[in-house]
């Protein structure tokens, strides 16, 4: 039984992660690949997060402020913020695919 519950929770969390990840990716896909991340963030993030918060609050109100629903949608909200942060702040280990011109080399 516990295993089933854990599996269920993991599935829900994975599905939530995937949906949010895809929604953020859709925002970036709607722009040209050359468009800078910071520009997309500036232009789209406010409306994205306002819309997401409204949806979360609508669900919370619909489910009569049930505690489990509040926890779930709070997770959704913070997960979205975390994923946006990852998107706009590339990791330090990331290497550039194209090396810059090194004119001093023969």
């Amino acid at each position, binding site marked *: 039984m516990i295993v089933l519950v854990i599996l269920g929770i993991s599935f829900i969390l994975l599905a939530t992660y995937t949906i949010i990840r895809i929604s953020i990716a859709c925002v970036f896909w709607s722009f040209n690949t050359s468009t800078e991340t910071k520009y997309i*963030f500036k232009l789209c993030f406010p409306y994205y997060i306002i819309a997401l918060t409204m949806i979360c609050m609508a669900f919370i109100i619909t489910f009569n402020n049930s505690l489990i629903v509040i926890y779930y949608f709070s997770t959704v909200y913070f997960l979205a913020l975390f994923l946006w942060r990852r998107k706009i702040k590339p990791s330090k280990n990331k290497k550039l695919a194209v090396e810059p011109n090194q004119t001093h080399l023969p």
Partner: protein
Amino acid sequence: MKKIILFIAALIFSTLFYGKSIGLNLSLFSILTLVILIINNKENFKIKRTLIYSAMYLATGIAVFFHDSTLAIIANIVSFFTLIGLLSEHKASIYVNWLNGLYTTIAGFFHRNYTVNEATQTVESKKEIDYLHIVKIVIIPAAIVIVFIGLYQNGNPIFNELIEKIDFSFINIQWLLFAGLGYYLFANIHKPIEVEPATSQDLKTGNLLFKTKDFSIPVLKQENQLGIILIALLNVLIVIFLITDITFIITNEEVRGSVFSNQVHSGINALIASIVIAIIILLYVFRGNLNFYKENKTVKYLAFTWIILNAILVLSIAVKNSQYIYYFGLTYKRIGVLVYLILTLTGLITTLIKIDKTKNIWYLFRSNTKAAFVVLVIAAMVNWDYHITNYNFNYAKSMDINYLIDLSDNNTFLLKKNSESKTLNTDIQKRIQIKYENYCIELYTNSWQELQYNNFKLKLK
């Protein structure tokens, strides 16, 4: 220092709202929010506009304490967003203030920490926080200490007794989480931010119309002719309508509910259509270069006449509505009609100014949304349930007592007073008594956070 203030505010937030319904807590929260904002935005609070909006916010907060109405709560929330938005950019339009206020409340902290630096064109985090290190220094020592406590407990009975005496049951995790939410909220709002490019675009957009390059006299002459014919015909039509309407008001001595109801409702529908179409037509006619055409005086005067006639139409509907109220009592819908008429009149006046002073459509949006906000705040100041009950008992020719009983608890004491002094049937008196008793129980069981003005009234009785 700022973090300590935010931390204290978060604790107060949780104390005020955790597991409580709305009452005194929202008024205190309004004061707390203002204190936090003043501490962090001192310069902004020297501006007159900020002070006016702060006063509005505070007034709606106090209104919630005096009459715990939904309208007052909505007005308080809207003025909260307006004030926050105003602090982010005080020159922006009110609807941009709402957007900025909403965004700041939802994600201000995140935006400030991962903002785009315009100078270096890089996305930068203000402070590099090593979360892994924080987890390490908290979890690892805690886990090891717990293991050792377990070991020592078995080794020494006095130590075991001491450990068993420790009781953490007073810690309420949900209360702490709620305080966390409070901290996040105050961290978001203490330094308001802007939504770009909406704010800069709004600042760039002025209120005035300018002559465009395609200024052509023959085209404008045709437009002018079309405008004159169209608005003149509409003027004739509205004059005929008004004559018949006023004749009806003066001559109709027989008062029947259905007649008045039909007149008011169909009148309102006609008014909605006529005002909206009137404004659209005027906006179309005066959309561009016709404003700068030298021979546009006739069309302008016709437009002014039409606006004034529409204003008379508004007044005629107001008269019918007030007669309806006098004969059949005050209700929320009838008050709603009056509010709509006030907004319509404002819309007409701003349209008149737009044509006279050659303003653009943004001027209309800005002034009318501001007017709607002011009407909302003023409407929130009034205890409508009390006034509806008072008017219907003392001034209206007839009324629906069941409607009054179904209103919120704000009219309970007045209903009780009237049921004692006036002759009402026993069934109605019984219903009023039940409402009164339930409300008294609710007031007696209120915690200090949920206190209302009626609590003090009850104590005096």
